[in-house]
């Protein structure tokens, strides 16, 4: 919703904020400005060093205005706690005074990189429910000041807020309870399951390609280490040689990316901890950059449990939640309606037995035991199989016959049993359940996903019938809430029997009639 408090004329009650930033703030402000240039700069250094470009060093002059601006920012920045809300005074030439009502404040999150921790400070993001960018970004405060700010904000809200009676528990930081902790061994597992290493390899590859590393590969000839490979013994293997080599390279690549993944997991999620603080959940994680996030329970729109094949191999699942507005701590350019891509973990990894307990910490109404799961339409399997087969045959038939001649039939027909197995398993593992309080759906067999959303969070319901649906008397249904912006978080189910879909749509539509406000 449009946040009027953003630009509300401050000091309406004559309040002047007096508190200052931490004395070292300018370093962080400057570093942050600098970051926007840093990739261009690194690229310039790498590319420039090849050409011996002296003009490069001139670009470092840009640092002087950056530092000056940062010092000025620290000089003029003031914040304070008025009767109504948090007041922030800032501005270089254009002064800006922002008042954020205490009762509107949803999160006071902190993020600390190595540099922050060296100085014992933190970057603070004050968020309301408007989603997208944080209402106020305070760079940087000492830890004691952060604690004081949290206390002031939540204490004021406890007394001042009449509109949000649910909040008063949030003030009590003391009654916190650890719900989940991930030891390094779990993070190693997470790294093995998650494949972030591949992304890094791709990124490095992309960077090398961009910086011209591959441009003159031909002139440079093969690197020296290639000559040390025992080519002769490989040649003796004849036809098997390339296969062995290929497998070896493949195994090395897999191994390397997995090791990278483990390192990334250890660095980003080190010391992951999920705690309950009053009514809210809080997560803390990170080795180098320490992130502390508050997941306000009344903003939780849905919870998702994901289990890939690797998850199941390690007997684990991943849990994440969607928040209204979808605001994460991630920076970047955000416009309303667009969410940050950062995952809001409830648990990056946990045992399946713990999943329900943790989901219930976020959505207390969820009760997965004894749910009456309903399946897709009886003919859904046939439709999925036909759809896949038709698509495959249309795509593959012509090229296959052109290249292979008579063998083509084999290539074209070989995957059909696979499609049949897929359709069978998909239908078996996909379904939905409607409870008095929430709507649950599960999808997929290779990667199994279970999503639950409380019925009083549902914004609208859409039933769609394609021409194919109509022929088979089926329909698909999609539920919208305030946190489903990301494609992977869509709450959509296809191939339902039309009668079921219609009754389900009607029941879900009726859900929010007496719903409590969800506080988005």
């Amino acid at each position, binding site marked *: 919703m449009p946040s009027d408090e953003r630009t509300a004329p401050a000091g309406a009650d004559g309040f002047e904020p007096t508190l200052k930033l931490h004395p070292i703030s300018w370093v962080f402000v400057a570093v942050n400005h600098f970051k926007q240039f840093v990739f261009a700069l690194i690229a310039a250094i790498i590319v420039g060093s090849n050409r011996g470009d002296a003009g490069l060093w001139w670009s470092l002059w840009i640092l002087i205005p950056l530092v000056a601006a940062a010092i000025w920012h620290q000089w003029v920045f003031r914040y304070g706690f008025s009767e109504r809300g948090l007041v922030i005074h800032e501005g270089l030439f254009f002064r800006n005074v922002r008042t954020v009502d205490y009762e509107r404040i949803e999160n006071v999150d902190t993020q600390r990189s190595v540099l922050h921790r060296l100085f014992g400070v933190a970057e603070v993001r004050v968020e309301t429910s408007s989603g997208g960018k944080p209402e106020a970004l305070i760079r940087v405060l000492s830890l004691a000041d952060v604690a004081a700010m949290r206390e002031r904000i939540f204490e004021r809200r406890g007394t001042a807020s009449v509109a949000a009676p649910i909040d008063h528990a949030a003030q009590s930081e003391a009654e916190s309870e650890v719900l989940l902790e991930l030891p390094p061994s779990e993070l190693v597992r997470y790294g093995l399951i998650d494949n972030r290493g591949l992304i890094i390899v791709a990124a490095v590859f992309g960077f090398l390609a961009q910086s011209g590393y591959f441009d003159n590969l031909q002139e440079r000839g093969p690197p020296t280490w290639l000559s040390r490979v025992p080519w002769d013994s490989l040649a003796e293997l004849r036809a098997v040689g390339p296969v062995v080599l290929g497998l070896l390279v493949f195994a090395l690549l897999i191994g390397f990316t997995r090791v990278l993944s483990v390192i990334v997991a250890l660095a980003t999620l080190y010391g992951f901890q999920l705690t309950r603080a009053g009514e809210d959940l809080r997560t803390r994680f990170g080795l180098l950059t320490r992130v502390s996030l508050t997941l306000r329970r009344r903003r939780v729109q849905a919870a998702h449990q994901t289990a890939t094949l690797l998850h199941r191999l390690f007997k684990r699942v991943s849990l994440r939640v969607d928040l209204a507005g979808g605001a994460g701590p991630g920076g970047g350019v955000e416009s309303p309606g667009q969410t940050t891509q950062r995952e809001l973990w409830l648990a990056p990894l946990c045992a399946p037995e713990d999943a329900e307990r943790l989901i219930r910490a976020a959505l207390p109404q969820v009760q997965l035991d004894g749910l*009456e799961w309903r399946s897709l339409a009886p003919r859904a399997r046939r439709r999925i199989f036909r759809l896949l087969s038709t698509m495959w045959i249309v795509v593959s038939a012509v090229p296959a016959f052109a290249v292979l001649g008579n063998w083509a039939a084999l290539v074209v027909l070989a995957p059909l049993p696979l499609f049949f197995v897929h359709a069978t398993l998909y239908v078996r593992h996909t379904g939905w359940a409607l409870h008095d309080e929430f709507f649950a759906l599960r999808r997929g067999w290779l990667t199994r996903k279970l999503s639950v959303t409380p019925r009083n969070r549902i914004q609208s319901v859409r039933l769609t*019938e394609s021409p194919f649906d109509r022929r088979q008397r089926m329909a698909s249904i999609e539920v*919208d809430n305030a946190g489903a912006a990301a494609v992977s978080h869509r709450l959509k189910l296809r191939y339902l029997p039309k009668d079921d879909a219609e009754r389900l749509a009607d029941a879900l539509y009726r859900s*929010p009639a007496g719903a409590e406000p969800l506080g988005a």
Partner: protein
Amino acid sequence: MSEPSPSWSGSPASGDEAPLAHDRPVDPRTVAVWRWAALIGAIPFAGAAGVFTISMLIAGSPLGDILWIAYPVLLAALAAGAWWYPAARYRRLRYRLDPIGITITDGILWRTQSSLAQVRIQHTDISQGPLQRRYGVATLKLYTAGSRFTKIELPGLEYGEAVKLRDRLLEAGDGDAV
């Protein structure tokens, strides 16, 4: 397939009360608006195809002979589409108002039915294009706090009807219940 039936109700308002809701069509004048809009929309396409045909004829390409026949057929098809589609859409487009909110059914090949509870409406727009103004119809746009279907549109309402519908939808939900 003997599955226990799920709890369809469970919400404060269960379906038993059977409100006096019925599907209502929108204003028939919207057909004319859509026909004009479709015709105007077809002009650039028809024009481009015409230029291409003529240039092929001038160039003496064998393609020109085919296009010479095909072009009138294309024009006829466009005109028929512009005539038929709005009427067909009008026949499908229905809305239903009940104590909870509004349900809109739309689409010819891909049919959608969007249901939106009144308390979920954040704000509304009534918009009129120049053609719509000429025919006295309007589009009612309902905004939710959702993330995928943030805007649900009901086109083709008579202007006064759109205003009445908006007032009716806004009277209970004051936008507080996000």
